[in-house]
């Protein structure tokens, strides 16, 4: 299923969730659950935490379905947007219990390997091109932030670059990426 078809299906299921049809939530879970769980697992690096966060995300989707519908939001983007909020909230609670045995790769090399693997999974030419136009370091920082849920501070530690430089790379890269995607 391509992104447009998936968006249309998600939209229709969100509409049905807004009408409080329980079966629609089940179908929506099948449609976007694996995508959201993948994102949350990468951000939180622990399956148990990702499972908790995924529950929160779907409870929120159900509660806000009417709002999505009324405001004609992009359904997939809106649902994906909830994931970092839950992940960050979860990480805040878990700060006292640091991850000793991360279940997912976190080094720059490992993340690059995962990225290379994923590049072949769903090709999107425009995104590929726009990401490819960014400097390598900036692209890596964006990846750490958006896909792996890392903070500025953590990215600075992971890449060995000063905090100010990381912030500046990320800011410039974000706007360059958007300009390219919207052009």
């Amino acid at each position, binding site marked *: 299923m391509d*992104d447009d078809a*998936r968006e249309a299906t998600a939209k229709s299921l969100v509409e049905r969730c807004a*009408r*409080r*049809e*329980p*079966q629609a*939530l*089940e179908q929506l*879970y*099948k449609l976007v*659950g*694996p*995508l959201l*769980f*993948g*994102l949350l697992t990468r*951000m939180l690096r622990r399956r148990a935490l990702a*499972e908790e966060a*995924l*529950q929160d995300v*779907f*409870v929120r989707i*159900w509660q*806000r379905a*009417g*709002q999505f*519908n*009324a405001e004609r*939001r*992009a359904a*997939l*983007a*809106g649902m*994906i*947007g909830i994931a*970092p*909020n839950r*992940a*960050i909230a979860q990480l805040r609670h878990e700060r006292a219990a640091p991850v000793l045995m991360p279940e997912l790769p976190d080094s720059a090399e490992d993340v690059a390997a*995962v990225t290379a*693997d*994923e590049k072949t*999974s*769903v090709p*999107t030419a*425009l*995104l590929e091109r726009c*990401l490819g136009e960014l400097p390598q370091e900036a692209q890596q920082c964006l990846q750490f*932030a*958006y*896909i792996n849920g890392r*903070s*500025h501070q953590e990215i600075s530690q992971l890449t060995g670059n000063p905090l100010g430089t990381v912030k500046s790379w*990320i*800011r410039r890269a*974000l706007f360059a*990426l*958007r300009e390219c*995607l919207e052009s």
Partner: protein
Amino acid sequence: MRPAPQHAPWIDRLAAEYVLGTLRGRARVRFARWRGASPLVDEYIQRWEKQLARWALRQRPVTPPPALLAKIQQRLSLATPAPVRWAAGLALIALCASLLLYGPAMRTVPPDRLAVINNSAGAMQWRVELYVQRDRLVVRSPQLAAKPADRDYELWALPPGEAAVSLGVMPVRGELARVLSPAQRRALALSTQVAVSVEPLGGSPTGHTTGPVIFVVPLVAAG
């Protein structure tokens, strides 16, 4: 706070960091609150969400454990009449279980108690059925219930002399079966009436009615 036009680049930058996930701590909480109050801030966030979602959609999916859906349904007080399971084995077990236990029982055995709620035109809007032995409450809505997009109808048990106990959000159309909690079972055992109130989406955030109560109807022993 209403943003001034000259603040647009600043809001845009914050929205970018918010969606990227690098806006943290109190700044994130404040910005989220501002989003709720300002359609303009929300618009900036949505624009970033839309662009960055393309990247998220490329990421490799990970199948969540099958039991997670049931937990979500439980948290939302939802239980579908014929649950569909992911794994084939579980699907078979669930199907057999629902056929043997749930399906015939709920469809052929009459409820122990029921309440009928008619709309202003006198037509049946909801039929609330209580199956005491099975700890189940089934709400049927044979026709589409009109409601504002940002509100839900919520059902309440009314034990005399005590606070109303929520029985969950009402379906707008179709059928909804719920497993009752011990508190709901107790409240229903004491109640001779149920009520429907108008609440924010997802139900009352406080556990008590927050909107107008639009129906109070008797909960009677079924035939």
